[in-house]
């Protein structure tokens, strides 16, 4: 078990990187606490897997240091770091039985057969693999195979952390849900550090206590799922988390209101004060679920046009235009939706301002 520290990490797959665009990871500087359940969330190609491979030691970063419990392990290969990694596709030693698969990492480290047996039986019990121990690993279904991959990490009682690289990609939807729950149970039981890479926000938000959102080689925000939802620090987080993503409108701030091409929206005083001081391109952001749509005008509302409604059964997504910009709002199923003309209310406590993509705090 370990606290993992990433110190000014940058990585490029080019031998002599010059331009910033040649870096897969631009600057990663953060700490993964011992025993935490972390998710690393981001679109394909944002550098998640690269970062994971740097943590496990499969890659050596171009710059920066990796520390386990304060000890510099940057130059150490994976087998010396005592880390486990579960890959996107199940990796098995398919000529071996399930038992031997689980025992393999321990045998390579020269443990006694008695100890190995004890440990393997223990882990098999946790993963519900006991009935299959004598079967050939190749004969198991995809979820069983992924459990074995995970088991090879768990058998090492002193493992520093377990890294998951989109481990549920090949699992059926029903089993996916069960396996995710299983992971959570295992995490609570063993208190190991889990770092879980995914591009699926549901997976990340249900699995992790802390979610790190990655975008173009940088971690733009680390926070609890609630934090990411309510206070996205970067417009990318707002857009990437939530379905549909956050609404963004170009604006200017005058007094206590944000002006959007003639429409004015009242902000809370603190936000407005910071907005007035902020440099760069200003944007107003609001989550579709907080945006209120009314049929009657009340003071402080902005006029919009209803463009379309999608009924998703339990709620509706309304597409509107405000001063030529498209907005989305989610409304409960039973709420009537005005036709054509509608009045929008932006609750000040949920209305955020962004300068050059970053939220003004």
């Amino acid at each position, binding site marked *: 078990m370990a606290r993992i520290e990433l110190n000014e990490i940058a990585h490029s797959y080019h031998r002599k990187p010059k331009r910033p665009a040649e870096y897969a990871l631009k600057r990663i500087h953060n700490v993964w606490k011992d025993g935490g359940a972390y998710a690393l969330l981001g679109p394909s190609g944002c550098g998640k897997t690269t970062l994971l*491979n740097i943590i*496990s030691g*499969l890659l050596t970063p171009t710059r920066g240091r990796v520390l386990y419990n304060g000890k510099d392990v940057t130059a150490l*290969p*994976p*087998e010396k770091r005592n*880390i*486990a*990694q579960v*890959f*996107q*596709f199940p*990796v098995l*030693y*398919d*000529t*071996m039985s399930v038992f031997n698969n689980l025992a*393999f*990492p321990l045998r*390579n*480290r020269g443990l006694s057969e008695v100890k190995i047996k004890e440990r393997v039986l223990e882990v098999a019990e946790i993963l519900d693999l006991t009935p299959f121990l004598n079967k*050939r690993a*190749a*004969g198991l279904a995809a979820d069983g195979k992924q459990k074995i*991959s995970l088991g*090879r990490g768990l058998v090492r009682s002193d493992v520093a952390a377990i890294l998951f690289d989109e481990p549920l990609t090949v699992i059926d939807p029903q089993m996916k849900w069960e396996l995710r729950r299983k992971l959570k149970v295992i995490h609570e039981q063993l208190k190991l550090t889990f770092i879980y890479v995914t591009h699926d926000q549901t997976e990340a938000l249900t699995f992790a206590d802390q979610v790190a959102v990655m975008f173009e080689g940088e971690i733009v925000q680390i926070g609890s799922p609630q934090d990411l939802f309510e206070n996205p620090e970067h417009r990318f987080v707002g857009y990437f988390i939530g379905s549909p993503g956050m609404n963004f409108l170009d604006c200017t701030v005058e007094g206590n209101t944000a002006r959007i091409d003639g429409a004015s929206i009242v902000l809370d005083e603190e936000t407005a004060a910071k907005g007035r001081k902020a440099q760069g391109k200003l944007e107003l952001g609001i989550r579709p679920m907080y945006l209120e749509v009314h049929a009657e005008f009340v003071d402080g509302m902005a006029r919009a046009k209803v463009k379309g409604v999608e009924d998703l059964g339990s709620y509706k997504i309304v597409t509107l235009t405000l001063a030529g910009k498209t907005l989305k709002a989610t409304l409960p199923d039973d709420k009537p939706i005005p036709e054509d003309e509608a009045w929008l209310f932006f609750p000040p406590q949920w209305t955020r301002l962004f300068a050059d993509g970053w939220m003004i705090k």
Partner: protein
Amino acid sequence: MEKWPNNKAWLLVLPVFVIVAFSAIIPLLTVINYSVQDILAPGQSVFVGTEWFKEMLHDYRLHDALWRQFLFSGLVLVIEMPLGILIALAMPKRGWGVAASLVTIALPLLIPWNVIGTIWIIFTRPDIGLFGYYIHKITGIVFDHTARPLDAWITVMLMEVWHWTPLVALLSYAGLRAIPEAYYQAAKIDGASDWSTFWYIQLPKMRGVLTIAVLLRFMDSFLIYAEPFVLTGGGPGNSTTFLSIYLVKIALLQFDLGPGGAFSLIYFVIVLLLSFVFYQALLRVGKGEKG
């Protein structure tokens, strides 16, 4: 859509029937025809039934050739398979070295078989051949594949290994390259040694291509003719007379069409039987992969 019988469709299959008939069935029937007759002179023949078959099956020279053939094919597999795998493991995995080594290794496969025999005749000559000359110089032995059976076997084996190990190497290399990177990464993380990585990942993952390599090399070496014929002509004595060489001796040199026909059919049946066994083995491997 409902299906209805349309016998005109058979017309479309007819060309295939004609081609197969001319390429396989008619020649085979001709051989069967010869194998049951004693041809005394052109246009003068006697039906002898299974006599030639009995004679050939009791022919000790055929027995010798058959055992020689098995020994040869066995040695071929024992040497070429591990050697091919070793070469594949040693080949570069990326960069310009890949293309360079692939081309270099594939070269022997591109040389006409008769030429290969000739190359090795010259190569092993003690006076002007590189191999023969240095063997003589270093060990004092006059290497002569035309006089000593052991020398003849060494030459034939060396030639065969040089000629065909590249095929095994290329197949193994293809098999190795097809293993996803994650397997190697997992092995590293599990702390596996190079040997266990080979034994538990690379070898099992190569199972498919290696089976194909074994099949190809066994059948090809079992049917070998051109290279040893050019090199030794089956000699000295009968020491390198393999089945094909013996068959050609009977059928074409002595022009014994009856025994030759019977021999051909026996040879054919043996090959067919071995093919069947190997085919079954291949199927089983395929199933194992899926399971």
